[in-house]
């Protein structure tokens, strides 16, 4: 069954890419193009569901299927096939990619309506899906790498889709530059991945995940293992926007919103997590690497979250939030909570896609306005968008019973259990910021007085093709969490955990992580929940409540308002004492200092350095032949000297 369906799952999107790409101009009608584009992703989703149930039917150990489409390279010792491995892990990613993917395709029909590049857009999206499927279904590094580069290419094409638009990014002006930045950043990551692949190949003589895992530890020394895994992690950092390669993602928002939702929130950016999870057995061999992963991840999570506090561009908020959430996932990987990471990938795909599409619907309704300062009070103009957006926000903030709560809580719990209190504390702080900034965006955009001028802007609800996906995602974002109910509720309630257990058995054995006492788990759960509530409450205070209060205060000095006065005073104190400092810190230190200063600075510095070197080298080329002769002669002397006397 799998062997018959898998080829279709893989090739349909590619067919769609060819159809839309080559004949798109001829077809012309947006309806037809959109239908093709969506169908070639929706059908694979259906097939995937079929396969999923078939897999459910099979016994846990018999659930891994290998399908070889065609032999790609077979050079003597070394052979790579277009071979695919469908096991529990890749199944989840397959479902996410095709499921969320088809919803976003549907949404794009409405969103991209009337764009002159309509067919181009859909062909790129289809190509992206094809590459992404290669990435997650591959059974060896090379096919993954093919997909890896492919998705990078597509994201490059899609970020620069509106290349003629100016764009306010970090140190860049045009969307084209954003695209290039993303691409170059990713290549730096790929460099790491390639080196890692080379090391593994030289050690194991194969690039198949299964064979490498079974061959562990092979002849590799611990240091070698650490180096290899770190190289792979560098690749993951590039794709999944972890520090120091994180800066491209916020700029990637230059692309159309569906792209941000699909590629830069739900699927592509999670490729890094997939890579680590897929090689969990490998990573678990090196505790150094694991520690570094956790450290980098938690730093990213916190910094990105705090930077998110002060963004006014709604998509920027979501972008930093994505970086921070990816940080959470890597924390989970770093402490060996593989399941939790995948779980969060899933829930995040739901609610973040939801939030992005919601913001897209807002931007659409506001005539391409992205600044939240120029919004407000949209609640009554676009009720559906509002409702769904709030659901998404509750989910990401981690309010029970929305999906985000369960996954995030599991991550924090395992961080506490297998990592240490600091890891947990920083994570919790990041979670707090998350709740705050996301609801800040809710209140700024949908509540309060309307700060846009009604003469030009007429907010309106989006068409059904856009709202339907919103609702579907909203439902998923609500109930998605029940796949991973906490263990404390019973041994087998964590469906996902039981599902993935066989995949991570080997890795977990290496990690020998310990469990928390149930009471402690309850406590942690309560803490993380209260953190979320607190953040929301604070945002509420600052962006909804306080204005009214101040008005009333201006209105009268009556004593019966003393309480309110005091409360307001308390508010003020609270704000002065806590919020303002955090605000300032995040604005000055983190945003300017770390994000733009150090990280961005370093990379631009590198680029600049290369440029300087380039200018230096070209000056050597004086254009005068004799000078070439001189260099030539020097070269000869060195060569002769080395070959004749080099041996001593």
């Amino acid at each position: 069954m799998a062997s018959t369906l898998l080829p279709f799952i893989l090739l349909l999107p590619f067919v769609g890419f060819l159809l839309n790409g080559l004949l798109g101009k001829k077809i012309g009608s947006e309806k037809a193009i959109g239908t093709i584009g969506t169908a070639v992703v929706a059908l694979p989703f259906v097939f995937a569901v079929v396969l999923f149930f078939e897999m459910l039917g099979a016994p846990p150990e018999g659930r891994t299927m290998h399908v070889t489409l065609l032999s790609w390279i077979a050079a003597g010792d070394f052979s790579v096939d277009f071979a695919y491995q469908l096991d529990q892990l890749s199944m989840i990613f397959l479902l996410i990619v095709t499921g969320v993917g088809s919803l976003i395709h549907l949404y794009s029909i409405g969103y991209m309506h009337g764009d002159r590049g309509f067919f181009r857009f859909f062909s790129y999206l289809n190509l992206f899906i094809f590459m992404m499927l290669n990435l997650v279904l591959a059974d060896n590094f090379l096919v993954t790498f093919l997909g890896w580069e492919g998705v990078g290419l597509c994201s490059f094409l899609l970020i620069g889709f509106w290349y003629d638009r100016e764009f306010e990014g970090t140190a860049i002006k045009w969307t084209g530059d954003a695209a290039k930045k993303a691409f170059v950043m990713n290549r730096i990551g790929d460099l790491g991945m390639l080196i890692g692949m080379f090391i593994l190949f030289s050690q194991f003589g194969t690039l198949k995940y299964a064979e490498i895992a079974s061959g562990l530890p092979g002849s590799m020394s611990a240091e070698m293992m650490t180096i290899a895994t770190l190289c792979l992690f560098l690749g993951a950092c590039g794709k999944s926007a972890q520090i120091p390669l994180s800066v491209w993602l916020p700029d990637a928002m230059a692309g159309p919103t569906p792209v941000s939702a699909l590629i830069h929130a739900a699927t592509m950016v999670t490729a890094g997590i997939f890579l680590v999870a897929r090689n969990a057995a490998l990573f678990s061999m090196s505790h150094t690497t694991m520690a570094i992963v956790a450290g980098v991840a938690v730093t990213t999570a916190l910094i990105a979250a705090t930077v998110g506090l002060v963004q006014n561009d709604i998509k920027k908020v979501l972008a930093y939030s994505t970086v921070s959430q990816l940080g959470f996932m890597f924390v989970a990987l770093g402490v060996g909570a593989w399941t939790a990471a995948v779980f969060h990938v899933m829930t995040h795909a739901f609610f973040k896609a939801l939030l992005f599409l919601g913001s897209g619907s807002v931007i659409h309704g506001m005539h391409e306005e992205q600044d939240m300062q120029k919004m407000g009070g949209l609640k009554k103009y676009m009720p559906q968008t509002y409702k769904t957006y709030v659901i998404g926000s509750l989910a990401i903030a981690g309010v029970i019973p929305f999906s985000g709560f369960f996954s995030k809580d599991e991550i924090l719990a395992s961080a506490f259990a297998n990592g240490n209190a600091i890891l947990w504390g920083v994570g919790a702080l990041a979670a707090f910021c998350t709740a705050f900034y996301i609801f800040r965006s809710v209140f700024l955009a949908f509540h309060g007085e309307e700060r846009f001028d009604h003469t030009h802007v007429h907010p309106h609800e989006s068409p059904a093709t856009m709202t339907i996906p919103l609702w579907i995602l909203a439902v998923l974002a609500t109930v998605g969490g029940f796949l991973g109910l906490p263990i404390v509720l019973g041994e087998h309630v964590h469906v996902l955990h039981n599902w993935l257990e066989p995949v991570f058995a080997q890795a977990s054995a290496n990690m020998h992580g310990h469990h928390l006492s149930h009471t402690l788990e309850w406590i942690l759960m309560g803490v993380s929940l209260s953190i979320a509530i607190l953040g929301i409450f604070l945002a509420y205070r600052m962006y909804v409540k306080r204005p009214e209060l101040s008005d009333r205060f201006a209105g009268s000095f009556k004593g019966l308002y003393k309480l309110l006065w005091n409360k307001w005073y308390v508010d003020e104190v609270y704000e002065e004492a806590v919020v303002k400092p955090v605000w300032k810190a995040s604005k000055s230190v983190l945003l300017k200092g770390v994000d733009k200063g150090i990280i961005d600075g370093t990379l631009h510095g590198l680029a600049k350095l290369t440029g300087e070197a380039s200018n230096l080298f070209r000056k050597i080329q004086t254009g005068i032949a004799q000078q070439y002769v001189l260099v030539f002669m020097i070269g000869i002397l060195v060569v002769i000297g080395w070959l004749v006397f080099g041996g001593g």
Partner: protein
Amino acid sequence: MHSIPLSYYLILSVIIFLIGSIGVLTRRNAIIIFMCIELMLNAVNLTLVGFSRFSGDQAGQIMVLMVMTVAAAEAAVGLAIVLSLFRNKETVYLDEVNLMKW
């Protein structure tokens, strides 16, 4: 018979070769530079003949013939190139020919 040892031939040819290459390095006139290159080729010929004479292996001398022919062909082509350059640029000085650089 071999009153003059092989090393004399080799050293002489090295000297001639160096004279040639230094000439290439220092002269500006394309034609003179080319003459220096011919000088280098002939130094090599001397080496070849010397080796061939002392090892009694004829291949070296055949090679010399090849080198001479090739040198002649190169001379013809070279002069033609210099000529066409002179027609366009009115110069045969190599350091004035630096349109393309960096």
